[in-house]
C-alpha cells in the first residue's frame, strides 16, 4: 500500500521559492565570476523574498492543514508569521549586503597572509546569501510545522546556516569563530533535548502530529511520565531558541561575536520562528495540559524577564546589552504563551513584528558606529554620539524607547497588548512582574540614552559612518514602523487580530 502524497504547492510555494532562491544562489556561487557574485546574490535573495511574499499574499486567505499531507498547517498564524519573517528578512538582507561586514574567506586563518591578501583584493564572502535564504526557509517551515519530524527538520534547517553565519565576521575573527562554535555546540545540545522530548511525546501519544498529541492528552491515554519528559525536553529546545533563562547563556556571546547584520537577522527572525513554533505547540498540542506547564512557563517567563533586565545593567558592550534586552523580551513574549487565548496570540504576533523592526534598526545603527578597526560596540566609546550624529543616535534612542515600552512607540502597544492578554487569562502575577521588570529594563535603556546625549564626547576617533542607501532604507523602515505602530497600531493590530488563529 503506497499512496503518493498530495502536496498543495501553492501553499508551500512561499517556502519553496526561498529554497529555490537558495539553491540558485549556491549555483551562482559555483559558476558566476567573483565580481558578479555579490550583486547577483543580493538580487536573487531579494527577488526570492519578494516573490515569496507576493505568493504568500495571494494565498493569505486559504486555510489548510493539508499543504504537505499533515505536516504543515497553513493557517492565519502561519501566514502572519511567514509574512513577518519575510519582511524582516528583506531588511536584514539589505543590512547583510552592506559593505564589509563579512570575512573574505572563512577558512583563512585570522591574522594570516591569506587573510590579508583576500582583504586586500576586496573579496567578500557571498555564500552568506544562500545561507540566509536557507535559514529563512527553515524559519518559515518551523512556524508552520505541525508534526514533530517537520519541526525538528525545520529547526535544523534554520539553525545550521545560522551557526555558520555567526562565524563569518570580517573583524575580530576569533570572537566570531568562538561565537559560531558556542552557538553550534549549545544549539546541537538543545536540539538533542528537543528531539528526545519529541520522542517521548511520541511515546506518550503514539502520534507525531500536534493534533494527535492533543487528542492523546484529551483522552489521557498513555504514560504521564512520558508526557512530562516530553513536554519538558521539548520546551528546553524551544526555550533555547528564543533565549529564555536558564537556556539563554549563548545569546550574549553569540550576539556579540556574530557579524552585526547576522545578529540583527537572528534576533528578529529567529525569535518569530521559534516563538511561532512554540505558540503552535503549546496552543495546539499542549493546551489541554495547561495546568501542568503554565506554572513552570510563568516562572521561566518571570525569571527570564528579571535576568535579562538585571544582567543588562552592567554590560559595557552594546551588542551584549541588546542581547540581554532580547532575553528580557523573550520573557515578555512568553506571557503570550501563558495567556493561551486568542488575544495572547494576537499580541504575540504584534509584539514579534514590533520587536523585530526595532531590533533590526538597532543593529543597523550598531553597524554604523566605527573606528579605523571596524565596528565599535564598546559602549564607553559611544559616549556623546548624539552630538556627532544626532539623527542616527536619535533613531537608536527611538528603538531603545520602543524596547522599553514608552508610549507612542510600537514597543508600548506590544507590551500593552501582551500584558492585556495575560491579564485577561487571569495571570496577573506575570503582569505585575512584567511591569516591574520593565522599570528595571528602562533603566539601562535610559543609561544608554544618557551616554549618547547627555555625556560629553571623548576625543577618541569613533565616527558614525555615513549610512549607505541600503542601511538608510533599513533605518527609515524601522523608524517609520516603530513610530507608526506606536501612534496608529490599528494598522497591524487589525490584521494580527484576523490572522491570529491556529488550525487544529
Amino acid at each position: 500500500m503506497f499512496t503518493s502524497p498530495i502536496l498543495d504547492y501553492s501553499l508551500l510555494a512561499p517556502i519553496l521559492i526561498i529554497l529555490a532562491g537558495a539553491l540558485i544562489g549556491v549555483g551562482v556561487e559555483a559558476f558566476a565570476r567573483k565580481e558578479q557574485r555579490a550583486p547577483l546574490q543580493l538580487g536573487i535573495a531579494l527577488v526570492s523574498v519578494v516573490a515569496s511574499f507576493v505568493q504568500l499574499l495571494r494565498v493569505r486567505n486559504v486555510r489548510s492543514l493539508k499543504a504537505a499531507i499533515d505536516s504543515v498547517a497553513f493557517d492565519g498564524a502561519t501566514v502572519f508569521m511567514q509574512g513577518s519573517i519575510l519582511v524582516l528578512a528583506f531588511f536584514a538582507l539589505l543590512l547583510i549586503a552592506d559593505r564589509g561586514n563579512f570575512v573574505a574567506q572563512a577558512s583563512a586563518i585570522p591574522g594570516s597572509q591569506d587573510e590579508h591578501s583576500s582583504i586586500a583584493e576586496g573579496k567578500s564572502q557571498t555564500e552568506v546569501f544562500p545561507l540566509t535564504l536557507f535559514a529563512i526557509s527553515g524559519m518559515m517551515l518551523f512556524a508552520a510545522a505541525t508534526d514533530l519530524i517537520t519541526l525538528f527538520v525545520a529547526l535544523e534547517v534554520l539553525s545550521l546556516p545560522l551557526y555558520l553565519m555567526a562565524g563569518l565576521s570580517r573583524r575580530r575573527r576569533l570572537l566570531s569563530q568562538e561565537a559560531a562554535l558556542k552557538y553550534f555546540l549549545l544549539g546541537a545540545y538543545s536540539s538533542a533535548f528537543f528531539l528526545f522530548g519529541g520522542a517521548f511525546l511520541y511515546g506518550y501519544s503514539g502520534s507525531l502530529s500536534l493534533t494527535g498529541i492533543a487528542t492523546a492528552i484529551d483522552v489521557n491515554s498513555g504514560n504521564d511520565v512520558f508526557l512530562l519528559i516530553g513536554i519538558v525536553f521539548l520546551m528546553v529546545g524551544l526555550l533555547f531558541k528564543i533565549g529564555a533563562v536558564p537556556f539563554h547563556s549563548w545569546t550574549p556571546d553569540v550576539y556579540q561575536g556574530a557579524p552585526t547584520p547576522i545578529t540583527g537577522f537572528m534576533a528578529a527572525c529567529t525569535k518569530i520562528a521559534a516563538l511561532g513554533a512554540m505558540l503552535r505547540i503549546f496552543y495546539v498540542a499542549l493546551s489541554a495540559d495547561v495546568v501542568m506547564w503554565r506554572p513552570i512557563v510563568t516562572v521561566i517567563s518571570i525569571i527570564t524577564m528579571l535576568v535579562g533586565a538585571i544582567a543588562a545593567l552592567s554590560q559595557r558592550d552594546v551588542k551584549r546589552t541588546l542581547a540581554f534586552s532580547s532575553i528580557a523580551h523573550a520573557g515578555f513574549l512568553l506571557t503570550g504563551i501563558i495567556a493561551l487565548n486568542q488575544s495572547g496570540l494576537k499580541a504575540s504576533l504584534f509584539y514579534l513584528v514590533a520587536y523585530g523592526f526595532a531590533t533590526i534598526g538597532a543593529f543597523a545603527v550598531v553597524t554604523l558606529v566605527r573606528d579605523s578597526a571596524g565596528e565599535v560596540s564598546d559602549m564607553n566609546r559611544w559616549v556623546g554620539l548624539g552630538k556627532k550624529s544626532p539623527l542616527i543616535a536619535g533613531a537608536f534612542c527611538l528603538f531603545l524607547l520602543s524596547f522599553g515600552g514608552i508610549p507612542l512607540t510600537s514597543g508600548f502597544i506590544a507590551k500593552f497588548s501582551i500584558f492585556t492578554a495575560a491579564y485577561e487569562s487571569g495571570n496577573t502575577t506575570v503582569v505585575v512582574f512584567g511591569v516591574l521588570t520593565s522599570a528595571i529594563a528602562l533603566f539601562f535603556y535610559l543609561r544608554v540614552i544618557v551616554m549618547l546625549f547627555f555625556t560629553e564626547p571623548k576625543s577618541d576617533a569613533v565616527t558614525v559612518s555615513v549610512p549607505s542607501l541600503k542601511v538608510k532604507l533599513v533605518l527609515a523602515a524601522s523608524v517609520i514602523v516603530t513610530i507608526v505602530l506606536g501612534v496608529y497600531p490599528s494598522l497591524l493590530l487589525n490584521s494580527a487580530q484576523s490572522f491570529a488563529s491556529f488550525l487544529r
Partner: protein
Amino acid sequence: MTTRTDLVYLIALPLFSSAFLLLLGRIADKWGHFFATAISASTFGIGLYEFFAMRSRSGDFRAATQRIFEWISVGTFKVDASLLLDQLSICFVLLITGVGTLIHIYSIAYMSHDRDRRRFFAYLNLFIAAMLLLVLGDSYLNLYVGWEGVGLASYLLIGFWNERPAYATAAKKAFVANRVGDVGLSLAIMIAFTQFGSVTFSGVKDAALHASSAALTALGAMLLLAAAGKSAQFPLQSWLGDAMAGPTPVSALIHAATMVTAGVYLITRSNFIFDASSTARLLVVIVGAITLLFGAIVGTAKDDIKKALAASTMSQIGYMILATGLGPVGYAFAIMHLLTHGFFKASMFLGAGSVMHGMNDEVNMRRYGGLGKVMPITAVTFGLGYLAIIGVPPFAGFYSKDKIIETAFNAGGARGILLGGAALLGAAITAFYMTRVVVLTFTGQKRWADGTHPHESPSLMLIPIILLSVGSVASGFLLNKGNALVHWLAPVVDASGAEGGAELFKPIVVSALALGVVVLGVLTAVLKYRGTVPVEAPAGSPLTRFARRDLGQDDFNHRVLVLPGRAITKSLVGMDFHFVDGIVRAVGWTLSYLSLSLKKVQNGYVRSYALLMTIGAIALLATIWLVTL
C-alpha cells in the same frame, strides 16, 4: 441694622494709598508721607462722622453692614466679604484712625532722616487698612484676613531696619509667634463651621445657643490661643519685647495702642461663646492674670526704656484679658481700659521716642537721667501718661483699671480673691516699675554718654504727644461718665441681667486699696532709684536676673521648641537622604550587585553554559513533577 454701600472706603483708602506708595517707588519720596498722613486723617474723619451719625441713630439702627462681594462659596461654606460697623467696632475705628493719624504726624518728623520714609508710611497705611478690616469684618474669616494683615504690617515694620540681623530676627519671631496664635484662630473658624455651619459673628451667635459645651469650650480655647498670640499673652508673649526693634512710632501704634489689643477685641466680639462656656472663661482669666503679673515683673527689670514699656503693655493687656474673662460685666471695662491704655501708652511710647530722638537713639535708661530739664514738654506729657497708667485719679487709667480690679474681686469665692489679689498686686508692681522709668529717665543726675546733646523734639513730634496725653488725662473720665461706654456697648456684649455676683468689697474700698498699693509701689521705686544709679547694670539678685531674661521665657522656648525643632529638622534631613532616598538607592545598588553576579555566571565557557542548561532542564523536570504528582 442698616445696610450700607460705603463702609468699604474706610479700608480701601489706606489700602490703596499703601499700594500706591509702594508701587510708585522713589518718585513719591518727596510727598509720600504727607499723602499717607492725609489719607489716615481722612479715615479718622470718616470714623468721626460715622460715630456721630451712629450716635444720632436709635438703638437698633446703630449697627450697619455692607456686603462687598461674594468671597468664598463652596458647598455650605459661604463667606462674603462684608463689613459690620457697630458700637464695638466704631470704638476701635476711632482709636485706630485717631491714634494712627497722630502717629503718622509724629513719624513725619521722627523718620525725616530715613531714606525709606515713604516705604514706612506705606506700611503704616497698610497697617491701618488691615486693622480696620480686622475690626470691621463681619465674620471670623474676614477678621482673619485683617488679623494676618496686621501681622504682616507688624512684621514689615518691626523689620523696617532689617539690615540689622537682630531686627530681622525680631520681626520673624513676631510673625511666627503670631502664627501660633493663628493656628488657634484657624481652628476656631473650623470648629465654628463644623459645629454651626457658619463663620459670621451673627451666625455663630445664633447657633451657639444650641451648641454642646465641649464645642464651645474648644472654640473658646482656640480663640484664646489666637488672642494670646496677637496680644502677647502668656505663653506666646515672648515676641513683644523683641518687637521693639521697630521704629518707635510703630511700637506706639502697633505694639501698644492697637494691634496688640486685637486679642481683646476678638474675645469681646466672641462674647457669646465665652458667656456660654465657663471653662473657656476660666482659661481666659488664668491667662490674663498670669500675664499681667508676668509683664509687670519683667517690667521691673528692664533697662531698655522701650522694653520696659513693652512689658508694661503686656501687663496692661493682661488686665484687659482678665476683664474679658470675668463675664458679661467685664467686656465693657476691658474695652474701656483698652481705649485709655491706647492713649496713655501711645503717649508714653511717643515720649520715649522723643527721648531717644534727643539721645541719639539711646534706649538704656541707665544712660538717661535728668532729662526733665532739657525736654520739659516730653517730661510733662510722659508724666501725665505715667499718672494715668498707675491709676491715680482722675487720670484715665484710674477709672478703667479700678473697674477691672473691682470686677475681679467680684468674681466670687476664692477665684475672686485670687484674681482680685493678682490684679491688685499687678497695680502695685506697675506703680513700681513705671516710677522707676520716670525716675531713671527724667530725674536725678545726668548719666549721658559722651557726645550726646539732648534736646526737645520738633513740634511736629510734640503735638501728637500733647494730644495723646490730653486723652490720657480725660478719656477715663469721659468714658466712665454715667457708665457711657457700658451703655454704648450694651447691644454688642449683652451685659443685661448678668449684673450681680456678690460684692466682696464696696467699690470705694477697692479704690482705696488700689490707691494704697500704688502709693506703696511708687514710694519703693522712688526710694530705690533716688540716689546714684550705676551706668552698668549691677548683677542683681537671681530674681532680677530671671526677670531680665523675661522670666526664662526665651530660654524655655529655645530649649523646648527651637532646639528640638532644629534637631527634628536635622534628623529629618538626614533621614530623607539616608533612609527614604536611601531605600531607593539601595534598590539600585542591589540591582547592580545582582547584575554583576549574573555577569560572573556568564563566564564564557561553553561547558558551564551547557551545565546551566542541564541543570535548568533537570529543575524543570523536577518542578513539573512536583507540581503534577
